[in-house]
């Protein structure tokens, strides 16, 4: 049976997904679903999207053979899918370009978004600037501190950045606040969710927009190697870059897949965001999925050196792929991710985002265990410029 035919009509991936929001948002989500379904069938929309991806985002992104790093690790051949080379520096723009076209089609004049690391906020502010739409980005006050550069970028792009001080002051609280804004301004506002989670249709829609990553990678590896890869590796916060890479390969059983969660200070420490390691299914922010929660069902504070992976929930399709055993979910600690950040920078001259560094950290474990003729594709979902202050700070260096 195909693994790539979900969600069902009501937005479920097996027991996961669905729509768990206040009643005020149910009709707007239905309207969005209908508009999105119509646009999927619309050749003009697809052509416009493809044009934007080519000329605005700069696609296709290269699939680069990391020859030196491969030699150093001494195992499988490692290919990097270079989403870091996209306009604005991460995969997030693929989705915001798509949703912005939808917002325009729906006649909305105002864009809102939540952001963790700031990449999705920047990508939203970017498309809003291009279309001349008002843009408000909600960002946890803690993340505003640790991602000051991206905050300023968003402001330069004309967006208003709202520092969210409720709850744990991170990504989940930013999403709560964005939902509150949406429910209040639903008539003129389009909410661009940045990850493949939230209420239906977002998980499917974001996946579809991000699937360009996997479709390109598939074609590129066939051109380079004449065959499919043996393994795919991507980091999983909400999981949009991972599902974007994985989705076009789901029905290729010979391709193993690894989703890498934030192990923080170690899964045993309690300070992490490894939902599949210690979490269980529940209902949070519009969707049924795996969560980090306490015994009373309160959502737990998470920890990761990377703001973009610091989230208590995970996209529902990942939850389903986990239970199905199609994707293996592992974690990498802050320390392992930092090491991978340095490795790729020094060995390949490519500075990855700390989020992507988690995927790279797993590659350093995986590649040496595989034969030299095997092939791994790892998604470098973003570039690391935004993290230079964080890395310097951790190493006691003042920039």
């Amino acid at each position, binding site marked *: 049976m195909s693994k790539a035919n979900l969600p069902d009509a*009501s937005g479920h991936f097996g027991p996961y997904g669905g729509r768990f929001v206040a009643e*005020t948002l*149910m*009709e707007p989500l239905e309207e969005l679903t209908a508009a999105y379904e119509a646009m999927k069938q619309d050749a003009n929309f697809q052509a416009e999207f493809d044009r934007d991806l080519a000329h605005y985002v700069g696609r296709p992104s290269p699939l680069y053979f990391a020859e030196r790093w491969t030699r150093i690790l001494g195992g499988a051949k490692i290919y990097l899918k270079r989403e870091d080379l996209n306009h604005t520096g991460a995969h997030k723009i693929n989705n915001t370009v798509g949703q912005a076209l939808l917002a325009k089609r729906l006649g909305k004049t105002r864009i809102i978004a939540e952001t963790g690391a700031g990449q999705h906020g920047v990508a939203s502010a970017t498309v809003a600037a291009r279309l001349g739409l008002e843009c408000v980005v909600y960002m946890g006050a803690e993340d505003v501190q640790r991602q000051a550069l991206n905050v300023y970028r968003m402001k330069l792009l004309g967006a208003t950045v709202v520092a969210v001080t409720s709850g744990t002051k991170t990504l989940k609280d930013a999403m709560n606040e964005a939902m509150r804004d949406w429910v209040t*301004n*639903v008539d003129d506002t389009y909410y661009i969710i940045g990850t493949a989670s939230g209420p239906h249709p977002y998980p499917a829609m974001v996946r579809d927009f991000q699937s360009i990553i996997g479709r390109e990678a598939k074609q590129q590896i066939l051109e380079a190697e004449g065959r499919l890869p043996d393994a795919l590796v991507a980091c999983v916060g909400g999981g949009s870059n991972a599902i974007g890479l994985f989705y076009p390969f789901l029905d290729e059983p010979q391709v193993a897949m690894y989703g890498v969660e934030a192990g923080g200070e170690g899964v045993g420490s309690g300070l992490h965001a490894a939902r599949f390691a210690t979490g269980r299914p*529940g209902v949070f*922010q519009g969707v049924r999925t795996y969560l980090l929660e306490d015994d009373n*069902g309160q959502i737990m504070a998470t920890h990761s050196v990377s703001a973009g992976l610091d989230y208590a929930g995970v996209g529902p399709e990942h939850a389903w792929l986990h239970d199905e055993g199609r994707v293996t979910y592992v974690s990498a600690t802050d320390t392992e991710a930092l090491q991978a950040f340095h490795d790729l920078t020094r060995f390949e001259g490519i500075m990855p985002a700390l989020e992507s560094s988690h995927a790279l950290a797993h590659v350093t474990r995986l590649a040496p265990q595989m034969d030299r003729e095997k092939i791994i594709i790892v998604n470098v979902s973003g570039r690391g410029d935004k993290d230079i202050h964080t890395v310097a700070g951790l190493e006691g260096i003042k920039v």
Partner: protein
Amino acid sequence: MSRIAQKFAELKTQGRKALIPFVTAGDPNPAVTVPLMHAMVAVGADLLELGVPFSDPMAEGPTIQKACERALLHNVSLRDVLAMVKEFRQTDSQTPVVLMGYMNPVEVMGYQNFARVAAEAGVDGLLTVDMPPEEAVDLVAALVAVEIDPIFLLAPTTMDTRMAMICAAARGFVYYVSLKGVTGAANLDIDLVGQKMEQIRRHTQIPIGVGFGIRDAESARRVAAVADAVVVGSAVVNRVAENAEQPEKIQEAVCSLLREMRAAMDS
């Protein structure tokens, strides 16, 4: 007949409308809640809505968000809230109590288990903001089996077809969210609420409560003129918040507001 249905039937014969105050359980500390519930009943509350504190109250404005945070400082859990209802029932077997909150704490307890413990405690209704009827089939079955009413929301954006579906699933009363926004917002349009009441009544016989944005005696009076019940949340919780440092003053602060509302509604 459920305690909620009985209460509305009784009010109808008296020609009165229900006043339903909301407080977050355990705000600002767990000892305040049960005595406050009794005090609210004494000044004319007909049903009580007890908020179950949640870490991520997505539909709440700042007032109830902060109430959740104050209660969670004391780790007030769904089980603690059920224990409070049980304590309240020791001396009040008449006043219906509706729990209001978010799904995840109920998910963790499990539907059957929650329903059993809640029924034993004397809970009459459950309103989970993030649980639309489409997703609630199993939950509704578990609640109905123990005679707890599942309460559902209707919103200004709810179209006719959905309204019919929600009204078919609802028991006890339906809760009309009077505005597009979060709890405690300031943009209540009472004329529009009146029009909506007529639309909803075409779909159901059960009573209609109206909440979100009712802040004083005047707005309570005007909503009571068109609806069957007036739900007052943030305005009550504000009185709690203002006295969070002197909890002994909370009862009087809340009750003086409810007395004014009651008088206006009955006038």
